Structure formats: structure tokens, C-alpha cells
């Protein structure tokens, strides 16, 4: 009865409530969530096993199971972010509670065809959560968001007809609302494009982005134990990704009483959603040369994820005496339909090397009192690839360009995870862990004087306790993640620096899990 009540509590707490390189990075550079035990150990589970997170980290760890297990977990995540944009500080906060893991392990503890034991698992895990809010603002007299529209038309050598109708999610809206306009030569031909934003006198810029959704994995894992020495495993993983972003961008005249400079404000809204699912595989091996030592290796193949994205946008611009207040939307230019694109994304390969040392009292060397574990994870962030599902030259060119950009923008890097657990007595155990995720960016974010603006990284400190009997277990974890990153709200051509917002966020995770052993 008590187990049922605890299970209900966990369940109730579960849920009471333009394509760019960053799109690829979103699916590779994050500290993946795992089970509460895994989270408490900083994710350093590569050589441990006996935990349901094994199917997602190193499937060989499933080979340690000799009894079945049913697990459900819930987590509460609170994220607070600070931004500095052109000297102005802003803060945001967002929190949510949801399901963390749900899974079952079916173990066969008997010898079977050379294996001392085998186990099969089905588990669903939310490995990344995209709920966040990025909001920052500042006074800018160096560049304007409208310049990205200018450059799009400039690089395409676009005539007026194209400017009106062929960029309906951005430049065409700017053109139709007179945020940008043509420059005519002496013969009246289009010689270029100009923005109505008076940047030299400065404008108030505001960027506000709500993101939601998550990246989840459904894993079918298998692990085998060869004479309690060698453990082998593999899992077929199906990623399910749902990402939504609502973006608001505005620029307004620094002096609202000035009605003679032909610019008052513009507001740009963009709604973007991306949904995809796919398949991948993970393979692993753990070797236990001695009872106190384990070493492991896991390879995560690239995951192939088919995406379908939808996009719509609208803009309102007030250019005062120039054209007045004008609005335009992609819906009205596209018969009410959102823009649609379909493509396939291949995530980077990951390889994890891991080791763990189990310590015991000298009198009872076979009864460990705890362990310390470390994982080193190699990720090829530059390996993310996009493939067009539309079979035409234009799409091909675009995705070629995007992939080249991925290679030029990101690099390989190592993530380090360390965790330790100590048995307090036969039932209770205490855990602690830490993890560091290095920058995935090939280049540093330097200003014009070569000063480092921000060094992106993710640093996690975690701790937790667990209570375990032969019939069930409860784990509780608290972790704090400090993330540093650079947010580039718009990028400009080589001759002009892109603005940057320095981001520092702290995410606090409360994670509880309840498992039944059978």
C-alpha cells in the first residue's frame, strides 16, 4: 500500500501542470538527464551498470541486472538566466515539473547460451528540456536587426518582385512594411536596399524568446553478462524531439518624441515549431578484471531524425512620415498557411571511455562500501549534418551550405563526469557528482579588441541519497547546472561585428524516483 502511495505521489508530481547551426547544436550540446541515481553521480555511469540509465549511456550496464525493475521518476527544473547585452542586464526565470523516466527491465538471472545472465529493457527518458526564456534588451547604435534583411536581399541580388514575395518570413515583411526600402540609382533602377532604422542615433532593441519542448529517447536495450567479467550490450534508440519557439524582436526610436526621423518602431514576431523522430543505436562493453575495478566503452552512433518544421511570422513597422504604420504577415502572403520544411538531421557520434573503482573494508573485500566513477565523453559537435528531403537543387545547395557552416562553426570536444557513492548502511547510500561540458564552438567569442566576451561551458554539481531494499528503492537528487553561453541575436556580413548577449544561467534540478524490483 505504501509503495502504491509513493508511486502515486511521483506520478502526480509528474505533470500537474530559420534553420541555423544552433538548431543542430540544440540536439547535441546538453547535459543529458538520466535516472535520479545517474543524475546524482553527474552522469558518470559508463562503467557502472545496474541502473536503467544504462540503456541510454552504456547498454552493457544492463548486463549487471539479475532482477527485474520498474522505474518511474519525476523532476522539477527551475532555470534562472542573466543576460548582458550592450551593457544592459536582464534576467528571466522559468520552471516546470514533469516526468523524467519510465521504464522496465526484464532480467534473466540464469545461465543461457554462454551468458551468466541477460537483461532486456524498455525505457523512456527525457534527456533534454528546452523550456526556457531568453530576454534581453539594450540600446544599440552600431547595428540593426533590419540589416539581416538587407543582407539577405543583397546577397541574392534580389529585385523588387523578389523582395515583395520571395522572403515571406522575413525580408518580404520588412520590405512590405517599409522597414527596408530600395535605393535607386540615377536611372531609377534598384541599386541596393536601405533600412529606415536610424542606428547612429541609437535604438532600443528587445529580444524575447520563449522556447518549450523536449528531447526524449525511447530505448530498447539488451545486455549480457559473461561470467561476471565481461558485459556486452546494445540498444536501439528512438529519439522524439519537440521544440517550439516564440520570438519577439523590436527596435524603437530612442527618443519617442522625435517624429521627424521617419522611424518610430518595428515589431517582428516569429512562431516556429519543430517535431521529429528517428532512430539510432548505442553499443557498449564493460570489463571487470577485478571485483574492485571496472572499465567501459560505449559508442553512440549518429541518430537519424526526420524533422518537420513550421514557421510563420508577422511584422508591424511605423516609419512615421515615410510610410506610416504598416503590418504584414506570412499568413496573408501564403493563404493562411505556415511555412513548412522537412529534412533529416544526423546527430554527432559520441564515444565514452569510463572507469570505476569500488572500495571496501579490508575484512570484506567482496562487499563494496561504495565507488568512485569517471567518464570521459568525446563528442563530434561538428558532425551534425542536415539532409534535404526536398529533391531539388535549391534545397540541396542550402543544406550543403548549412553543413559546411556546421563544420566551420563547431568542433570536437570532451565532456568529463565524475561521481561517487557511499553506502551509509545496508539500505541508505549517499551520492555526489560533477560534470563539465566544454565549449562546442570552434572559435572564441572575441570582441574587436580580442577580449574574450564569454567562454561557453556547462558545469554541474549534484548530490543525492538513495534508499534500497530487496523489493523497492527510492532515489532523490539535487543538482545545479551553471551554463555560460553566447546568444547572437542576428549575424551580419563579414565586414561588421555581430552583436552578442552574454548568458549565464543556473538550472536547479530536483529529481525523485521510485522503483520496484521483481
Amino acid at each position, binding site marked *: 500500500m505504501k509503495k502504491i502511495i509513493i508511486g502515486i505521489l511521483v506520478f502526480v508530481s509528474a505533470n500537474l501542470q530559420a534553420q541555423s547551426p544552433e538548431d543542430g547544436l540544440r540536439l547535441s550540446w546538453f547535459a543529458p538527464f538520466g535516472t535520479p541515481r545517474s543524475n546524482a553521480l553527474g552522469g558518470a555511469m559508463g562503467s557502472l551498470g545496474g541502473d536503467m540509465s544504462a540503456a541510454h549511456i552504456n547498454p552493457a550496464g544492463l548486463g549487471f541486472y539479475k532482477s527485474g525493475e520498474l522505474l518511474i521518476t519525476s523532476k522539477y527544473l527551475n532555470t534562472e538566466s542573466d543576460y548582458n547585452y550592450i551593457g544592459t542586464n536582464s534576467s528571466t526565470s522559468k520552471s516546470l515539473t514533469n516526468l523524467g523516466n519510465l521504464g522496465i527491465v526484464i532480467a534473466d538471472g540464469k545461465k543461457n*547460451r554462454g551468458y551468466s545472465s541477460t537483461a532486456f529493457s524498455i525505457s523512456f527518458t527525457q534527456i533534454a528540456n528546452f523550456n526556457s526564456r531568453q530576454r534581453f534588451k539594450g540600446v544599440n547604435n552600431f547595428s*540593426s536587426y533590419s540589416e539581416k534583411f538587407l543582407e539577405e536581399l543583397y546577397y541574392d541580388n534580389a529585385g523588387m518582385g523578389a523582395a515583395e514575395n520571395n522572403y515571406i518570413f522575413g525580408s518580404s515583411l520588412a520590405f512590405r512594411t517599409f522597414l527596408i526600402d530600395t535605393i535607386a540609382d540615377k536611372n531609377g533602377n534598384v541599386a541596393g536596399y536601405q533600412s529606415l532604422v536610424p542606428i547612429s542615433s541609437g535604438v532600443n532593441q528587445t529580444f524575447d524568446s520563449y522556447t518549450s519542448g523536449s528531447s526524449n529517447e525511447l530505448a530498447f536495450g539488451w545486455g549480457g553478462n559473461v561470467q561476471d567479467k565481461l558485459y556486452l550490450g546494445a540498444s536501439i534508440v528512438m529519439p522524439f524531439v519537440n521544440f517550439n519557439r516564440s520570438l519577439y524582436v523590436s527596435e524603437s526610436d530612442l527618443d519617442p518624441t522625435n517624429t521627424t526621423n*521617419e522611424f518610430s518602431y518595428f515589431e517582428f514576431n516569429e512562431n516556429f515549431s519543430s517535431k521529429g523522430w528517428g532512430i539510432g543505436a548505442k553499443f557498449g562493453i564493460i570489463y571487470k578484471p577485478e571485483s574492485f575495478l571496472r572499465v567501459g566503452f560505449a559508442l553512440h552512433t549518429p541518430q537519424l531524425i526526420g524533422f518537420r518544421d513550421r514557421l510563420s511570422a508577422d511584422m508591424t513597422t511605423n516609419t512615421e512620415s515615410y510610410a506610416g504604420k504598416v503590418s504584414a504577415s506570412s499568413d496573408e502572403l501564403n493563404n493562411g498557411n505556415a*511555412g513548412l520544411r522537412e529534412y533529416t538531421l544526423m546527430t554527432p557520434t559520441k564515444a565514452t571511455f569510463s572507469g570505476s573503482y569500488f572500495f571496501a573494508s579490508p575484512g570484506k573485500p*567482496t562487499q563494496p562500501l561504495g565507488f568512485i566513477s569517471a567518464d570521459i565523453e568525446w563528442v563530434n559537435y561538428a558532425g551534425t549534418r542536415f539532409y534535404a528531403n526536398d*529533391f531539388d537543387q535549391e*534545397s540541396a545547395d542550402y543544406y550543403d551550405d548549412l553543413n559546411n557552416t556546421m563544420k566551420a562553426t563547431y568542433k570536437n570536444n570532451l565532456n568529463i563526469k565524475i561521481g561517487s557513492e557511499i553506502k551509509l548502511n545496508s539500505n541508505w547510500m549517499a551520492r555526489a557528482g560533477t560534470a563539465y561540458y566544454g565549449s562546442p564552438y570552434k572559435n572564441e567569442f572575441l570582441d574587436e579588441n580580442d577580449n574574450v566576451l564569454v567562454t561557453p561551458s556547462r558545469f554541474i554539481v549534484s548530490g543525492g541519497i538513495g534508499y*534500497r531494499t530487496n523489493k523497492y*528503492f527510492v532515489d532523490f537528487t539535487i543538482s545545479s547546472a551553471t551554463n555560460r553561453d553566447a546568444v547572437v541575436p542576428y549575424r551580419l556580413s563579414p565586414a561588421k561585428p555581430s552583436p552578442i548577449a552574454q548568458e549565464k544561467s543556473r538550472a536547479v534540478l530536483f529529481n525523485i524516483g521510485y522503483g520496484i524490483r521483481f
Partner: protein
Amino acid sequence: MKKQHNLSLIGFNAIGLLMACSFFFTSCTSLQQTTTAATDDLYFTPSKEAETTTKTTAKNNSAEASASEEAEYQDYQNYQDDRYLRLKVANRNRWSSIDDFGYWNNPSFRVGFGMGYGGFGGFGWGGWDPFWSNRIGWAGYYGGFGGFGGFGGFGYDPFWAGAFGYDPFWGGGFGGFGGFGYDPFWGGFGGFGGYGGFGGFGGWGGWNPYFAGYWNPYRPIYYGGGVGNFPMQRNNYTPRALQTSAPALAAYRTNRNYNNANNFSNTTNGTTRYTGNPTLNSGFGNLLRRVTTNNTNPNQANSFDRPARYFNNGGFSNSNQNKSSNSNSNTNTAPSVNNNAGGRSGGFNSSGSAPSSRPPRGGN
């Protein structure tokens, strides 16, 4: 913000309550089981057979144990033989090509036979294929096969499963999954992983990076490619636009300059220039063009700089320009522009399905 703060507090309280309840229940239980040492698979749990063996060790001797292992081994051999015979009976044409069963059943490969959870390969039929979904033609034939043939991968044994033994990591049982697409060389042969549980049917969809028609990881996917277009040949399409790459992508690659500060010392109208940074003064000063000059028009009495891009001069002109409404001072000669440009902004079909002309200016 205050509302959010309150929501956060509620969330914290909920978690706190959950923790308190959990500890309450677990504490109660612990009182009942204080002397029970919990087994933990993470550390080590003896197998059920090992436990049994331990209890009956005194009754056994080494000869009996050896006989037991031999019997188990022989059972396994018989199982393999029976299985192979059943396969041949079921479909002689398919399996008769592997008559030399003894060769393929070489002990060095034996361990892997039938290890996995075979039979899941059936999912391969009609399985989802991210490359060919919503496609006609190839998709109808190969997509489904390739899809979740991967479940045959449960027959996978990373070292020994391979019926062929070609590739210790990807062969055989995993070939079922490889059929969908990982192994660039042998995925297509994964069908023979059927020994390990029929997962190999997925092998029909095998991905081979050297056959553009299936899927080429180095180039975008092309419909209608196939072996006929081997290798990596594109279809010849008439481009609708001269340039479809978003300039923002070029900026990623070529612009490593960032700034998080204003570079003007004066933000008043009109006369400001880069005065705080000499480098910027020379490097970026020409990016800002005066598009409206002081003149007698009362609506344009102030002077201010606006960003502009010109088709000539690399996008930026060295001479001040007036707005398009004032063409007298502009001496640039416009190149021919493309009114069919665009249409694929950001990978989306960005040509509106309801094209129209921009309404006339409504300002004063």
C-alpha cells in the same frame, strides 16, 4: 515576474511535500526492514543459478559439472541444427545457397548464433524511414524494408553474432538494423543475420554511402538517383534562384567578430561617428551611409545615418546616398537584379502562395 516567482515557490513546495512524504513512507518501511541487506545490481548480485549452485556444492563433483556443461553445449548445437533445417524447409531457394552450414557454423562464430531477441525484424516491413517517408518510387520498395528492420538488431552480439563474421561489430544480427543504415559496407548483407533471429530482413534497405540513390551522407539525398546515377550524381535541375544560401550562414563562417558594446561616444542625431575606437573608425566607418542629408524639406530637417547595402562596391558605397526618392545624388549604376531570387529562405519554401505587390506608402 512576481507571478513567476510565486509559481516557483509553489513548485518548490510541491517538491518539498513530495520529499517529505517519500521519506515518511520509506522511514516507516525501514523500521520494518532494518536488518535486511539490500541487493543492488549496480554492485553485484549473484545469479540465481550461482546461488543454487552454492547451496548444492557439496552434492556436486567436478565430473558432474562437466557433464552438465557438455549437455548444455550439445543442446545448443542441436538447437542450431534444427533451426537451420527449419529454415531450409521453409524456403529452399533462399537458404540453399548456404549449404556449407558447417563452415558458417564454425565454432569461432558459434557463440553469437541466436543470442538475441530475434524475430523483431518483422518490424522492418513497412517501417518508418526518415529518408523515404512520404516518397513514392523507391520508398515503396526499399523504405519499409530499411526502416525498423533494425529491430532485428536485438539479435546483435557485438562480437560473435555475425553469421558471416565479416565485421565483428556490425555484421550479422545487427545487420538487421544495419539494413536501415549504419554500416557503410555490410549493412545490406545484414539479411543473413537472420540466423540470429531474422532481423536481417532489414538488410534490404541497407544504406551505402557510395550509392547516391540510397542515401549519401556526403551529399543531400536525391530522388531518382540510384545505381544509375552512381556515384553521387545529382539531378540536373534548373535553379530557380541564383543564390539561395542565407547570408546569415555566410556570416557564421566568415564573420568571427562580435561586439557587445556601442562604439559611438555620442548618440545624438546626425553627427555621430565612430569616435571611441580608432580601429572601428577605419574598419567599419564606411558601413554607415547617410541616406538622408540635411535639406530644406521640413520633414527631413535632421540628419541621421541608416544602414544600407549596395549591389556595387561590395555592398557598401563610399559616397553618401540619399533615399530612393532622391535619385539625383546617387551615381551608382544598378546591376541587373533577379526578380526570381529567394524562395528558399532558411530552407523553407518562402515564396508566398498569394503573391501581391507592396501597397503604396501611406505616410505623409
